[in-house]
């Protein structure tokens, strides 16, 4: 990580990728008439978009910065990006929050790892702050998870499954 601006561009890319993925998940579930979870993903996309916007404001960037290439991540995708295969058409809000929790934990670790490197002081300071923010998100999602019903066994059983041959 060379400079503070590089770091912030990367953080912005991370938030943007997460925003887009949650929005895609919302679209998928809208298509499959799972409105409740679609709405939850839409909400999560909104939260990530706010984080991205805040980075732009903080950096005084009028629009998207020159982003690092998509393959710049150490992992297959950005640390806060949920994988496509996490989805199920019958999933419930609890599952959506589980996905979000996993992503927030990955993001927290990502920033903690940068804060522990020999990067420039400004980068380490920003990474520490962002790790704290992600930690707070983890706490919020854990609280949220307590407020939604836990899925009952067999939640993914469909009396008229799409895989049934007529």
């Amino acid at each position, binding site marked *: 990580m060379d*400079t503070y*601006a*590089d770091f912030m*561009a990367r953080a912005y890319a991370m938030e943007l990728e997460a925003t*887009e993925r949650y929005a*895609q*998940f919302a*679209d*998928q*579930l*809208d*298509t*499959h008439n799972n409105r409740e979870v679609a709405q939850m993903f839409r909400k999560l996309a909104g939260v990530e978009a706010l984080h991205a916007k805040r980075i732009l404001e903080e*950096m005084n*960037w*009028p*629009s*998207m*910065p*020159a*982003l690092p*290439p*998509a*393959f710049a*991540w150490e992992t*297959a*995708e950005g640390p806060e990006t949920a*994988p*496509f*295969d*996490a*989805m*199920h*058409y019958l*999933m419930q809000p609890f599952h959506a929050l589980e996905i979000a929790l996993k992503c927030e934990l990955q993001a927290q670790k990502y920033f903690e790892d940068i804060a522990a490197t020999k990067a420039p002081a400004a980068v380490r300071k920003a990474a520490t702050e962002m790790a704290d923010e992600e930690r707070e998100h983890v706490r919020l999602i854990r609280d949220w998870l307590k407020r939604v019903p836990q899925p009952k066994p067999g939640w993914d059983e469909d009396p008229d499954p*799409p*895989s*049934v*041959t*007529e």
Partner: protein
Amino acid sequence: MNAPATAAALVAKDFKSDYKPVWCPGCGDYSVLAAITKALAILGLRPENVAVVSGIGCSSRIPAYTTCYGFHGVHGRALPVATGLKAARPDLTVLVASGDGDGYSIGGNHFLHACRRNVDLTYIVMDNHVYGMTKGQPSPTTEPDWSSKLAPGGTGLREFHPLVIALASGASFVARAFSGDPNGCAQMIAEAVRHPGFSFIEVLSPCVTFRPEQRAWKDAVHAAPVAATDDAARAARRIMTDDGFNLGVLFKGKRAPYQPASGGTQAVAELEAGFRLGSL
């Protein structure tokens, strides 16, 4: 880093249309769509300079989901359409999207000859070892012992080996990718597009509805332990003996692509004149 630095550059989102995919949530094809759009952004292409051609099947819906020119053709016939298009419009970047049913069964013969011709196309086959759109019939790449209501006890037939067939038929770029790694897949698609000649990428793309056990593919895939070779014999040995989960470019040959000397120079009016009854 000074921002903003790349105002004119297109990003992956610019290659996505407003149509929402109707694939099952969890389907690998979402990742492949993401990989294709990322690859096009990486290559610095513009939608109007790219055509995406497909046949029939879940994966063949892809052209509608991009902002590029698209042709959703008939079952198994994506490659002939794409070949004709590239012959007439060599300036276009032509991607062909298919699945294991469309591409290896009804389109199997076209696959052989597309490899043989080595026209500069990029052929992306999303392989999930099943006909998903038509409710789970075994495809050419289905394991012989995969038992289902439509094939109780399995077909008992050995699988088609697309990479070996591609190599033996003359494809000049042979690779395997995994949908669970959209960035790696995007990188590979970009490399395939840059490669002159017929580039074939088999993308392992799980069908979570009919083959839910394929969710475990993410634990089975691994990077190919060796770099790409331009030696077809060596590549053949590697591909014949691999476990089916080796990811990477497995062959990158040097054969010159086939391109007809003259492109499509006839005007539409001239073509129409040839079909007029009075002209016979």
